[in-house]
């Protein structure tokens, strides 16, 4: 037992040592450089961008990085018109946008979206068809799914939400969402609402699932970072950074940093899955 513990501690130290080494290398690229990077667009990216910016700016005070939101559409437009250096999108840039602005895309994370219910909900799994019917308002009582006799409270996100977009496209196959569904403004608000409502059903980014919520199996597949990576769980999307033309200098270093080992670690800590 003691032996095992010892090995465990040694291995942990080893990993820690490795990771500090790696992070030092990641930030080395910025040594002695100065300038500004402006970032805007997709809001899902913000935690990753902010943490990366913070780490770079604390070790290199001559570099200034500003991070703003605005949504994927804004990301494309601002990057295309040269108003920001990096425009973030939670979707692939369309061919039209690519040819109009000459954008180059850099995916750095996989984000999955999962259906969530109250943790006391007895249901273990749902099929995609059932989810579609619930959100379309065809199934309105948990009894119809083998649950208790109670009306289903449907929660959804606003139209600006990238989470809604991927859920709508890949889970609902662009099907209808009933007008009477409650609309909440963020992943956090969705968590609060569903965690407090016994009859709720909603959806969040996989990174936001914790033990305050229950994520039922979808067609027998558990929504998790692992199944999203393996491809078993289908409701996923990529998060992209986009630049007008090939990135140069500081912007190039930033993108490499986010897509590098330390960036991957930040991405993971933010609840997303780094792309390989």
């Amino acid at each position, binding site marked *: 037992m003691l032996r095992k513990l010892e090995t465990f501690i040694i291995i942990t130290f080893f990993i820690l040592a490795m990771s500090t080494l790696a992070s030092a290398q990641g930030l080395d690229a910025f040594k002695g450089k100065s300038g500004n990077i402006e970032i805007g667009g997709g809001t899902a990216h913000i935690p990753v961008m902010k943490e990366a910016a913070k780490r770079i700016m604390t070790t290199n005070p001559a570099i200034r990085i500003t991070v703003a939101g605005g*949504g994927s559409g*804004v990301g494309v437009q601002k990057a295309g018109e040269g108003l920001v250096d990096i425009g973030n999108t939670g979707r692939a840039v369309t061919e039209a946008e690519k040819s109009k602005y000459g954008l180059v895309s850099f995916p750095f994370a996989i984000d999955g979206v999962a259906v969530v219910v109250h943790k006391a909900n007895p249901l273990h799994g749902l099929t995609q068809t059932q989810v579609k019917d619930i959100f379309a308002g065809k199934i309105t009582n948990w009894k119809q799914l083998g649950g208790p006799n109670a009306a289903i409270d449907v929660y959804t996100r606003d139209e*600006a939400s990238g989470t809604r977009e991927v859920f709508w496209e890949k889970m609902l196959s662009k099907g209808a969402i009933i*007008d009477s569904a409650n*609309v909440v*403004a963020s992943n956090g608000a969705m968590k609060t609402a569903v965690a407090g409502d016994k009859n*709720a059903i909603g959806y969040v980014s996989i990174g936001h699932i914790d033990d305050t919520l229950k994520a039922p199996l979808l067609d027998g597949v558990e929504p998790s970072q692992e199944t999203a990576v393996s491809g078993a769980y289908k409701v996923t999307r990529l998060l992209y950074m986009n630049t007008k033309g090939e990135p140069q200098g500081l912007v190039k270093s930033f993108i490499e940093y986010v897509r590098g080992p330390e960036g991957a670690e930040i991405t993971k800590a933010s609840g997303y899955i780094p792309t390989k």
Partner: protein
Amino acid sequence: MERITRGLLLLSALVAGLAVLAILGFLVWFSLPLLCGEGLTQVLSWRWRPFQGEFGILPMLVGSLCLSTTSMAVALPMGLGLCCFAHGVGPRKPAALVMGVVRFMTSVPTVVYGFVAVFLLVPLVRAAFVSGSGFSWLAASLTLSLLVLPTVVLMLHAQFELIEPRVRLTTAALGLTRAQAVRYVVLPAAQRGLLAASALGFGRAVGDTLVPLMLAGNAPQVPGSLLDATRTLTAHIALVVATDSQSTAYLSLFACGLILFVTSVAVNLTLRSLNRSDGGRA
């Protein structure tokens, strides 16, 4: 010296006036593409389904009106009661306490009301009425009435303070108690104050964003009952503002802004005219 002061005041008045006009111009300019031709019928319709190309904001307009009306229906009698209590119906010490609490309420940030209500009021509503998620017209309306209550009370209070000294000797000479004086003399004379308080409170209720955003459920529908979710114009703007700035959905926000602007101007003009005629009488 006086000339400089007068000039400065004139200048700041001019700047403030121009700013308001500029806002109006800005809103009109941006909603112009919608306001002429096909856009208008698109925006003035009952369905908000941006992915299907439907951009109606009428449900939100109705939602705003419903919510502010019911909020005032609760806040106004309550405010009136509190004010009468503080001005002679109630004993002196609790009366002072009531006014103190009301003054304190003005300093509570809106988000605190919203946040507390999400965890206390919403589950209560959900449990009390079996249907619905609790995020409803009712929950938002109750919280909103709490929010506008100080506005109502303080407006009325100011009005009472104006009237009371004038009638004090007379009512005392007639042998009326303070409570009777409030009931038979001050209250009838404060009618215009009551109107002003309701107009101001209504404007505040229409304009508030956070309470409906956090509590009303934001479903873009005309609520069928107090337990249904509804969306106000302000919450609508907050929810949609992050979309692509080229889309019709985004442009329709300027129409929402224009409606809100016109509402607040109307409320202020009403107040103005009330004050003027009141000044003539007093």
